[in-house]
């Protein structure tokens, strides 16, 4: 390790994909705890009817920052962290194509996060914090009332720079640096899903940047894009936002599909079923994600023809998604399965993501969406796809690849505890929210009518258990980094893929001479 700086300089100046991947993953993990702590405040306030813990503005700040931090700070950076570590290892490249840009795209992130959260600490009393409190969707004109809007806008700009640079890097790496013989249709599915995700990012991040810039000029330079009094249209904001926002949800879930598609074949000891159709389904989902945005705003007052179109296009997404679930099932079918920890998370993903998929289909049906919209039914839906979907895949991916990264096996007993307690508690947390929504509880309210008390209490109990259990995850990771049973290069019995051909732990430089792929 003499060929690179050590200490703090190693991390500040590194251009090594593994170091950068590690930093992304730790950053994401830190943000998971920050965003998670905010979720705990939310669930504590909602534990009982009445206002006990925070004031309404602080509550709104918590829901807003929780959403923004989990989306932009935890899930997305975690996926980029996986891409950094795994894409070069899996395609037989020595590093990412643009290593200096890689360093920069990471180091922007902490500053963006600080900029986003800083206003929370401005204001006399902590409870009077001035953080954004308009929901992670920052709808105009509400967001335009925010005093410190510029902080928010520049934080989003920085996040956008970082994502776009990361995406360019991933595309350049995958298209240019594959080992000889690694044709596109031989790439591991994780690489495929990231390739498609990176194109989504490049397509929609500029739209996000555009919409916040319009907000900026509305607020500070006298334009009226979203101000009806000046001839603008508040609903335009929602169209532009969701043109970014809907692909964004696939940006979070497609790499998760990729991770699960790596894990299941390994532990079923059987090749992924329908590899080609998985690739096509991913591309189809990505394409459809651009033409369904208005299903987030069915109640905004669109002509019936528009609503019908967006309904039809939306429910179409169920087709490629169902194909994926069927393919995973067929991969397990007649396999020779074992249930190592990564496999447990992958299986939980398939079951629970499917539940989220079904509620997504229900939400796409316009007339019933009039009842579901902006209730806890929606909250339950997107937490099933983002927590038991994206986050579970991330956790599964960490358990799957961590032995390769560290050279050590993690504490399997603790990891199983982590899995079972998380999986049970996450359902106690989110399943009752379906009932709350159907019974009529709106989302984003700090207090509720008495008939919602019991399910909220159950949900909060699940939340405290689920949140607390993630501390165990932290402990397991630290323990694994510090030591543990040494693993073989292959790590998992008969695992297939170039990442399992390099030594464990993966040395600082791998695939220096390209491997050949048969």
């Amino acid at each position: 390790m003499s060929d690179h700086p050590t200490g703090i300089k190693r991390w500040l100046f590194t251009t090594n994909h593994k170091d950068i991947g590690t930093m992304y993953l730790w950053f994401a993990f830190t943000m998971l705890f920050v965003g998670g702590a905010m979720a705990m405040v939310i669930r504590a306030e909602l534990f009982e009817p009445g206002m006990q813990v925070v004031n309404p503005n602080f509550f709104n700040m918590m829901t807003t920052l929780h959403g923004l931090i989990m989306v932009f700070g935890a899930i997305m950076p975690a996926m980029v962290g996986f891409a950094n570590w795994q894409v070069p290892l899996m395609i037989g490249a020595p590093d990412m194509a643009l290593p200096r840009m890689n360093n920069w795209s990471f180091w922007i992130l902490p500053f963006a996060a600080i900029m986003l959260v800083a206003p929370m600490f401005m204001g006399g009393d902590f409870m009077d914090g001035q953080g954004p409190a308009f929901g992670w969707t920052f709808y105009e004109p509400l967001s335009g009332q925010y005093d410190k809007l510029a902080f928010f806008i520049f934080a989003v700009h920085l996040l956008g720079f970082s994502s776009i640079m990361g995406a360019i890097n991933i595309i350049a790496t995958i298209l240019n640096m594959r080992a000889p013989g690694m044709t596109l249709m031989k790439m591991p599915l994780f690489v495929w899903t990231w390739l498609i995700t990176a194109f989504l990012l490049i397509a929609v991040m500029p739209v996000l940047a555009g919409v916040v810039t319009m907000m900026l000029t509305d607020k500070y330079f006298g334009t009226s894009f979203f101000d009806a009094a000046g001839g603008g249209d508040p609903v335009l904001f929602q169209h532009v936002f969701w043109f970014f926002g809907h692909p964004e949800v696939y940006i979070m879930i497609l790499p998760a599909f990729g991770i699960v598609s790596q894990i299941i074949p390994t532990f079923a000891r059987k090749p992924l079923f329908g590899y080609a159709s998985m690739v096509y389904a991913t591309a189809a989902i990505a394409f459809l994600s651009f033409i369904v945005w208005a299903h987030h705003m069915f109640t905004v007052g669109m002509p019936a023809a528009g609503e019908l179109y967006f309904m039809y296009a939306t429910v179409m997404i169920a087709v490629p998604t169902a194909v994926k679930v069927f393919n995973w099932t067929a991969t397990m079918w007649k396999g020779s399965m074992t249930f190592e920890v990564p496999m447990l998370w992958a299986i939980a993903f398939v079951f629970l993501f499917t539940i989220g998929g079904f509620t997504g289909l229900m939400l796409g049906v316009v007339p019933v969406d009039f009842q579901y919209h902006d209730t806890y039914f929606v909250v339950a839906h997107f937490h099933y796809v983002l927590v038991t979907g994206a986050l579970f895949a991330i956790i599964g991916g960490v358990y799957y690849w961590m032995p390769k990264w560290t050279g050590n096996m993690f504490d399997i007993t603790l990891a199983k505890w982590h899995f079972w307690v998380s999986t049970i508690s996450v359902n106690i947390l989110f399943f009752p929210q379906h009932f709350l929504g159907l019974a009529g509880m709106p989302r984003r309210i700090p207090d509720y009518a008495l008939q919602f008390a019991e399910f909220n209490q159950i949900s909060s109990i699940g939340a405290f258990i689920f949140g607390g259990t993630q501390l165990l995850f932290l402990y397991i990771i630290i323990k694994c980094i510090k030591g543990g049973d040494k693993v073989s290069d292959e790590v998992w019995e008969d695992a297939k893929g170039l990442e399992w051909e390099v030594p464990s732990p993966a040395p600082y430089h791998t695939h220096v001479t390209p491997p050949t792929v048969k």
Partner: protein
Amino acid sequence: MSASHITKKLSVLLGLLLVPGIALADYALNMTQGVTEISKDIYDLHQLVMWICTVAGILVFTVMIYSLINHRKSKGAVAAQFHESATVEVVWTVIPLVILVAIAVPATGVLLDIEDPSKSDVTIQVTGWQWKWQYNYRDEDLSFFSNLSSDSNEARQLGADPSLMAKADNYLLNVDKPIVVPVNKKVRLLITSNDVIHAWWVPEFAVKRDAVPGFINESHFTATKTGIYRGQCAELCGKDHGFMPIVVKVVEQAEYNNWLKTEKAAIAAAAGDSNKTFSHDELMAKGEAVYKANCAACHQADGSGGGPFPGLVGSKLVTTGSIEDHLKLIIAGKGIMPPFGAQLSDADIAAVTTYERNAWGNNTGDTVQPAAAKAAR
């Protein structure tokens, strides 16, 4: 909630994990059927889609669970090596498509029913404000605001005595002044907003429509049963988004007519107040009520303000500033401070101004009469 109570709830929950969709009335687990034709159609559609999803889910999960049990290495399963099958893949692409069509057809029907342009009997303009609703009966020259009722408002303050919640009538779902509409009559709603986006939602009517500033959204309902129906704002609209409920009283036509008559008489009486002169104490008492209902949400009951909302205790404008400027600010608003000219009468504005200039130790001794408010408009 006792431990046994929780166990009971949990067992209900577990039962539901296995058989979703069963409506156990006392737990309000499912969507309401509501009291309009459309709400019933929507409920039926919801049941249809939910059952399709449930059955599909059970089928897929059964296959997965079967595989998880039987195709495991510990049972000696040897991995087959098949990894594609064009037939199977085409079949399971087509099946979801067919199911989607089966859902889309009735959904289209219901949606087109909702788009019903026929003539309505009553037209109400609904305007969202931070954080209350304004109702304007278009054909009746009747307009009023509907705020969270004061008992709920007291009970929902941070750290309030929890017993207040139980004592409050329909905690958080009650208002000082509900709207009243006739049963079996088509009520047309013209929904808009004065500030940010809100959404007017009454589940029993299956009406949820965004209130967008500068635009008017149309919706309608025909309630087929008399009763009191409650809803809430459904779009995040700032700090007190959770505290702007909706209450609709559906009554017989005769009762509706009576209600209209009483309301109009009250308005006529209030209009007379503009020309009256009140004593300082009368104005203070009235002003306190107006302040609590309209101003305390931002400036706090004790006038201390907080965050972007200035404190009024010792404020320059309120203590040493001119009365006219004070009145004008309340009438015309400024920045986030909404204009109150349209929603408060001259007497109300005079009273609240008097109150602010004398409460919380401001003690200016000023008395502001309705005539001054009228002049300041």
